[in-house]
């Protein structure tokens, strides 16, 4: 199956062994989107790499990639980030989470034959894109975070528009419940399908909504807080079923929690500096650091080694989609070939993140 199948997200080839209609084994064959980002990062300065992680990794959540990169650099260089910048970053990260989950919701709907959900998800996402565009200048690739802060302050009236979006979005979310949660066809194709038991999820290194739908109450935002996540209140949605439907419910609830975080941040947004002084050709001290964040897809980490030069010596990216993809075999074994697409859609992979 694949790599150019319209139902796969990106270019993924799956070698599916069948017994009649039953799936005996699935081997994902990856590498079609490999761009050697880790090697390319060794040839670029720390500032230039912000532009690279935007598009080289998970392109649907560019802010999350920027965040993990600047976090690694700041930890190694012990660079202070002003309060206001940390709040702005948190707002942006949560908006990014909503926009990424909306794309997933839409494509998951398409995989199961519900086209309306896709158009509606795009309509909501467009609002977020407009917010991003007015603040950062880019819609998909922002290059907004800087080592030691953010590029520029929020434009006038941005916080009001963001508030407006939060209200609008919470009004719209019940529509998805009406459209999908109660839909018998959707339920029949997701409930009990593609179960990932908790111990398998842990053994396979699954993280993010995939692991949380299997009952693992782990979120990097709670376990290893970064930015201002320790100061805002939010819940981690956890389901114990581990099926496609549980993954759907977890992501829907995560979007509600994201709105909750954004509202708290907007309320407490302090005034002041947004960027500390950092040289364009920054030289980080010799050493190594590991930074981890909760991207929309899961536990995203960067291991950074510096030899004191103006560019990194080695970068290793721990991509959440890669680990989640390998839990796929366990999920699909024993199901019918028609369920393969539903299960693949439910884990929300971005092949650019898998192959890097």
């Amino acid at each position, binding site marked *: 199956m694949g790599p150019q199948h319209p139902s796969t997200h990106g270019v993924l080839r799956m070698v599916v062994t069948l017994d009649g209609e039953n799936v005996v084994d699935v081997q994902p064959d990856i590498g079609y989107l490999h761009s050697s980002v880790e090697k390319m990062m060794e040839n*670029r*300065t720390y*500032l*230039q*790499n*912000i*532009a*690279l992680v*935007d*598009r080289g990794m998970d392109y649907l959540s560019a802010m999350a990639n920027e965040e993990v990169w600047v976090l690694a650099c700041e930890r190694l260089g012990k660079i202070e980030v002003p309060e206001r910048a940390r709040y702005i970053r948190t707002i942006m990260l949560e908006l990014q989470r909503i926009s990424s989950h909306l794309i997933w919701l839409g494509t998951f709907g398409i995989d199961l034959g519900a086209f*309306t959900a896709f158009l*509606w998800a795009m*309509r909501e996402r*467009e609002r977020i894109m*407009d917010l991003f*565009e*007015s*603040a*950062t*200048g*880019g819609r998909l*690739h922002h*290059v907004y975070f800087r080592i030691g802060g953010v*590029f*520029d302050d929020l*434009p006038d009236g941005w916080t009001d528009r963001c508030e407006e979006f939060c209200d609008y979005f919470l009004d719209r979310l019940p*529509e998805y419940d*009406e*459209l*999908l949660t*109660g*839909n*018998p066809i959707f*339920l029949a194709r997701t409930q009990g399908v593609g179960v990932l038991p908790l111990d398998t999820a842990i053994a396979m290194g699954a993280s993010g909504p995939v692991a949380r739908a299997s009952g693992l109450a782990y979120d990097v935002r709670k376990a290893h807080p970064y930015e201002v996540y320790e100061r805002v209140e939010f819940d981690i949605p956890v389901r114990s079923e581990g099926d496609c439907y549980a993954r759907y419910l977890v992501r829907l609830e995560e979007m509600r929690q994201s709105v909750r975080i954004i509202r708290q941040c907007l309320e407490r947004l302090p005034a002041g500096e947004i960027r500390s002084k950092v040289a*364009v050709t920054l030289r980080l001290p010799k050493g190594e650091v590991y930074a981890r964040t909760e991207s929309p897809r899961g536990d995203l980490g960067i291991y950074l080694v510096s030899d004191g030069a103006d560019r990194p010596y080695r970068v290793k990216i721990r991509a959440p989609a890669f680990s989640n993809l390998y839990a796929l075999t366990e999920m699909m074994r024993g199901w019918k070939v028609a369920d393969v697409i539903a299960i693949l859609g439910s884990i929300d992979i971005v092949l650019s993140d898998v192959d890097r």
Partner: protein
Amino acid sequence: MSAEMMPHSDGRRSRMVRIVAGLVGLVVGLKSTLRAMFEPKVTVSYPLQKLNVSPRWHGLLALPIDPETDNDKCIICFQCERVCPDRCIHIEATGKAKDRLLTRFDIEMDKCCYCGLCVEVCPTEAIVFVPHYEASTYNRANLLYDLDDLHRATPKEPIATGIVKVRR
């Protein structure tokens, strides 16, 4: 007999419940799609209609001419050339110190990733973004913007101009 029928009738009842619940779910879903049909349309039929871009928009790059000196604002510091991650800016100059003259300022727009680092590091705001985004062309050579192109801040051969052209 009746004891044997019990599970069967039970199954039938639960099936009936499922069918009714399913029908209700479908009707609720169709109702919300019907409601959306009468809401105002959100689609913009590009390229006949266009949206305004924000002032911070990362569009095409330009070198605006300073109205006071009637010349470039560029002080030939090579900062943008150095910071560019794609190495797509090429600057050459003649003369020394204050008499330096810009002889070449090329941007390979096909390589550009619109990250905006050049605009950020420029000390004199000599290189800026313009709210123009339709740079597609049939020829790659058209994407090499030289000093003149950057002054005019327009692509050499605008293809997407807002009206769909019919090719003969």
